[in-house]
């Protein structure tokens, strides 16, 4: 720091630290009071003013003062409210009660079925075919494995045929034509305590997993 008053003026008292030197010489002659600011030695030395940057140690809103505390609490309450409202609305979109047919149902007594018949009795309500063979029963899910339409049982052609995209399945459920990638699913079939056939649509047996040989996939009865 140059003393702007120059060597000509003898000022015994040094300027107090931190004060600009102009302050000490402000009482001296006005001709030497304020020199023009010197151009910087190199252009690269110019530093941008830090006006739009907060000081390094300023925490901004996160500085806990009394005023900031209420500001923070207000924002926190707002976001908590927003989050709980969102979660509550999303939860509301999941119905608790479904007005849909139950997954397990009783399908009458075994002697009601004729050997060799593909029963469509429970197709409308439960989307299930019950097939009676000479030595037992199996239940096929009437949901096409292509895109989920309901196929139709064509007695004359001895096959299930889907009206949506033409997938065909044998009486056993094996797919043989159309875009369906895998056989129809078989469902759990058993005898209930009262002697009726009990079918649980939640328990599925997939041919490609080798499930069809499992005991619950086929009800032995003769």
């Amino acid at each position: 720091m140059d003393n702007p008053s120059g060597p000509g003026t003898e000022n015994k008292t040094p300027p107090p630290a931190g004060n600009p030197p102009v302050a000490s010489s402000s009482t001296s002659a006005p001709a030497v009071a304020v020199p023009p600011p010197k151009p910087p030695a190199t252009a690269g030395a110019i530093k941008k003013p830090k006006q739009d940057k907060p000081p390094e140690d300023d925490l901004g809103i996160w500085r806990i003062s009394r005023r900031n505390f209420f500001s923070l609490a207000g924002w926190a309450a707002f976001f908590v409210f927003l989050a709980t409202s969102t979660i509550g609305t999303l939860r509301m979109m999941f119905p608790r009660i479904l007005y849909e047919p139950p997954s397990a149902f009783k399908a009458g007594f075994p002697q009601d079925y004729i050997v060799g018949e593909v029963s469509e009795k429970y197709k409308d309500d439960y989307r299930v075919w019950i097939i009676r063979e000479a030595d037992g029963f199996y239940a096929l899910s009437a949901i096409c494995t292509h895109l989920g339409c309901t196929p139709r049982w064509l007695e004359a052609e001895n096959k299930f045929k889907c009206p949506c995209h033409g997938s065909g399945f044998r009486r056993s459920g094996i797919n043989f034509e159309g875009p369906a990638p895998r056989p129809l699913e078989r469902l759990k079939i058993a005898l209930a305590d009262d002697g009726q056939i009990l079918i649980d649509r939640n328990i599925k047996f997939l041919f490609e997993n080798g499930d069809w040989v499992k005991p619950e996939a086929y009800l032995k009865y003769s």
Partner: protein
Amino acid sequence: MLKIREKLQQTEVWKSIFRHNYQDTNRNRALQIVDNVFLHLHPVRIPRHATNIGYTWGMGGITFLLFIVLTVTGVILMFYYRPAAEYAYEDMKYLMNDVAFGPLIRNMHRWSAHAMVITVMLHMFRVFLTGSYKAPRQFNWVVGVLLLVLTLLLSFTGYLLPWDQLAIWAVTVGTNMARATPFLGHQGPFGPQLGMRIDNDVRFVLLGGTQVGPPTLLRFYVGHCIFLPLIASIFMAVHFWRIRKDGGISGPVSNDRE
């Protein structure tokens, strides 16, 4: 007579509606657009090339017109259509057979919906061919893609509302794809690992059940009439605003340099 008119034109009400007298100056013509809430979406000045329909095909504007037609006819249809499984199909038949001008309104809605999907595609095709997706318009391309998705969702949700066999099975097939959603579908990648079942995954939320049923009809109805048009309107406002912010309607390169 002239005096009455003159007096009328000096009332506060008149001046707040018609804010300028009609002197045919450039300034007045601009102000008429700028100061009118219904016209302010339109730019004050358009470049000469923008009047060449061969370049833009006017597809964005036609799409917007169709959206307005769909909104108006859709609201009219809402007076007769009840989104409940017992009534929906009957109401559709009622509209088509016994309501005065019912077939006209419903067919306007249906054909405009089909046409809108086509014009949106053609609009996108034109924007692609003319390279109008390039900077500085890349953001608007993204908005446009969102609008395309919203248009398809509007079309899909509206498809269910007649509640006939075609509608039910088309939506059954369409929503079965949601089973395979990654993370959120019970048959999708990582879905079962995250605990997704048929009665808690994303398809369950869409359908309001495990199969297409009465809750699905109601959900699709609300989505079709309220939720999706609202979102689409917001994105449309952004879409139109961005056109002007990005330098006006796209034109041939030689004209852009002027």
